[in-house]
């Protein structure tokens, strides 16, 4: 980091802190003034939800060292729990707040159910189990037509309701759809920031230390009185619960649970890609990874597709002309390059190495 940047870092941070929550209105202002809809506000909500999901996987893979290939299952369970508990065709209708509380609990319970009998399996076996669970969940959701409405998905999911005084206050300045957008933006932002703080605390706490110790040497950790199975199960269920929370936010943002095939194996792999690109076990890396991946999907890819199609003209219906079709090729290439040049990810966790020499200098 250059000295100038370092000097201005607090200023930048403060600016971010003030401006970021105002993003929905800034984008609206941009639209009003320039007449272009960038939809940055929508994209940024998706990025944040994806970052929450990646944090969940980071707890399981990055911290606990459990190779989990079915995170999309818990994401889907969170989304569908939200759907079942809020849509008006079912009698529960708990609303957004109730769903936000229940979805992580239900997803966490499924995590416990899956983890309890399988957590003692060694790495690759657990990967197979979770992979199977991920696919199984998708197919089960697809086939439980009476419960989940099969391929149609559950909708409409009600939007979060702002307190009346706030809504009345904003109503004077803003159109209603903008207020709804701001509400979900703030809620997702709060969830993400809260989780980041929680994870940061976890890293420095007894539980975090136990996880690091387990990752380094499971046998010795056991001999030091840490129960490997219980600790890993807690982390696994915790990750599942956070994925459930992400699912609840996702479904609320979309206003539908989306079709079950959204939550397929490639989704799980994409979250894993995000971790590896950002830096496994690094909080800032995870957020950066989510930003990079989703910006590629939602900003770079459409722009390049448009450019390609303008160039190709008449041949624009070809599959090669759609940049989204290049996605996995590019991700794969990026992963290989990462492994070769930056195995720790784009923004790896800080090395805490204390060199005896520098210590003597100080």
């Amino acid at each position, binding site marked *: 980091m250059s000295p100038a940047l370092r000097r201005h870092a607090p200023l930048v941070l403060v600016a971010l802190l003030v401006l970021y929550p105002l993003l929905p209105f800034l984008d609206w202002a941009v639209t009003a003034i320039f007449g272009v809809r960038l939809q940055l506000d929508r994209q940024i909500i998706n990025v944040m939800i994806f970052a929450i999901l990646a944090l969940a996987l980071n707890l399981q893979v990055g911290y606990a060292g459990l190779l989990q290939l079915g995170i999309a299952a818990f994401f889907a369970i969170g989304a569908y729990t939200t759907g079942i508990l809020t849509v*008006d*065709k*079912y*009698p529960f209708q708990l609303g957004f707040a109730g769903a936000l509380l229940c979805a992580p609990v239900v997803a966490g319970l499924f995590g416990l159910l899956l983890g309890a*009998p399988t957590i003692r399996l060694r790495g690759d076996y657990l990967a197979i189990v979770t992979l199977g669970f991920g696919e199984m969940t998708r197919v089960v959701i697809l*086939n*439980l*037509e*009476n*419960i989940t409405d099969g391929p149609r998905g559950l909708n409409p999911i009600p939007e979060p309701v702002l307190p009346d005084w706030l809504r009345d206050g904003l109503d004077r300045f803003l159109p209603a759809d903008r207020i709804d957008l701001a509400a979900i933006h703030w809620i997702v932002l709060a969830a993400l920031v809260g989780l980041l703080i929680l994870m940061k*605390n976890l890293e*420095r*706490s*007894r539980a975090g*230390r*136990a996880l*690091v*110790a387990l990752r*380094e*040497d499971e*046998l*010795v*950790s*056991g*001999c*030091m*009185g*840490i*129960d*490997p*199975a219980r600790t890993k199960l807690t982390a696994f269920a915790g990750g599942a619960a956070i994925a459930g929370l992400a699912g609840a936010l996702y479904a609320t943002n979309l206003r539908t649970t989306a079709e079950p095939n959204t939550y397929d194996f490639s989704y799980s792999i994409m979250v894993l890609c995000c971790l590896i690109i950002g830096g496994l076990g690094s909080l800032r890396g995870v957020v950066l990874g989510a930003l990079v991946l989703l910006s590629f999907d939602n900003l770079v890819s459409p722009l390049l597709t448009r450019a390609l199609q303008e160039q190709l003209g008449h041949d624009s219906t070809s599959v090669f002309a759609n940049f989204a079709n290049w996605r996995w090729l590019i991700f794969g290439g990026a992963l290989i390059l990462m492994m070769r040049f930056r195995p720790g990810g784009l923004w790896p966790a800080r090395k*805490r*190495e*204390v*060199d*005896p020499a520098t*210590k003597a200098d100080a």
Partner: protein
Amino acid sequence: MTPPLLEIDNLTLRFRGLTAVNAVSLSVLPGEIFAVIGPNGAGKTSLFNTITGIYEPTEGSIRFEGKDLRRALTRRHAVGFGLTGLLVGLLIAVFVADVDKLWSAVVKQTYRDPSAGWQPSRAWAALGDYLAARPRVEQRIGRYYLTLHDGKTPFGSSKTLAEAESRLADLPRLAQLAGLEGALAPRSSGGFAIIDPVSGRRLDESPYRDVLEARLAAAQGEPAAAARTRWRRGLALLAGVILGTAGAAAVFRQTRRTPTSVAHAGLARTFQNIRLFREMTALENLLVGMDRKLGQRGRAARRAGARPALLLAGALASLVLLARAGAAGPAVIGTLALVVLLGTVVWLARIATLGAASTAALVLEAQAATEARDLLATVGLAGREQMLAKNLPYGDQRRLEIARALATEPRLLLLDEPAAGMNPSETVGLMQLIRDIRTRGVTVLLIEHHMRVVMGTSDRIAVLEYGTKIAEGTPEEIRANPRVIEAYLGKEELG
């Protein structure tokens, strides 16, 4: 005579054909330094691994402080197995009963009319009906169907709920009539009808005879078919309960003696080839050793923090209740106010608790760090707290491993070749450290090749050869024992 701290009785460890430890009996008295020596491959480390729960002994018992080191099967465990079994059984039973149809019957059919609201009691009743495979009335697209247990609807649909329900009520009578001659008769107006010969009531009618025959057959077959379904579901529940209980019990049986449970019992160990958490600092290595103690402290602190908050919430709630009982006003507003107020109080209490808990956590963490520093200082690692374990010099790594084991606050410390690879001056320091550990009230069980360490520190020594104990006694006795000399130096061939 004081009872032994560790009592190993007739311990045998076999790996298929290989007997690593052969009927070894040892007893370590509290407060002594006991050494196990023997040539390479004599089974010393295997003995340690068995004691600390890494290997399960083939035969024999290990008792620590008079208790078997295996976790006892308590009533709590038994209840846990039962609950696990019940959970698995219910899951399997629900899936055998078709969770999709069950949902439809229990939730969708009891919420046919959103304006009428939803009564959980009706849903419960529907759940009971469905699981017991009773025929029921279902509404689909505005019409009412008498649905048999398997979801079939041979009776067609009705326009009104009452009509469908009367059909449901007639089902047993219809089953009785099925075998009866003349129950099915032609109508004067054409078509056929089923008429109850006792009451003369017309139970069903249709232009087609075979439709009515099919309905009679369905009504007749229903009780037996439903009973079979009930059996199947019951069997699934039973199978699940057995599977779940057995599974939980099997996991328990396999984990009765784990390194963790042994560590919790008060034994700690070091390893022959140093196994530190290499990427952690010296201080963190110790904090991992203190994990259990910190967990207990944290729980106690949280409990202590939660109590005043709960008391406060309880007191406020009762105050509000009292005030409300005196006030006369619209009941709805009163209740709402109560709910809001209670919610706020609980919320505030929660925040207070969380705040207290996190403050406590910070205090506890600081306290733990101080304790860890002190412990590091006692093994001679003061000033190296923040160094990564892998960067420490070899002798310091050995010391750090001992300190980490001590951090678990053991009553028995097992040291596996602590002097291996140490230079003479480090060895002297180590001997002093071992004596200091004994002074702290920790009994030491030691494996060592370094005779100076063994003879200079131990109170008693046991000698293993090929897994068998060949001698036991004080250092002087061992030094003079001809079998020991033979094991180490070989037998003198004469003649």
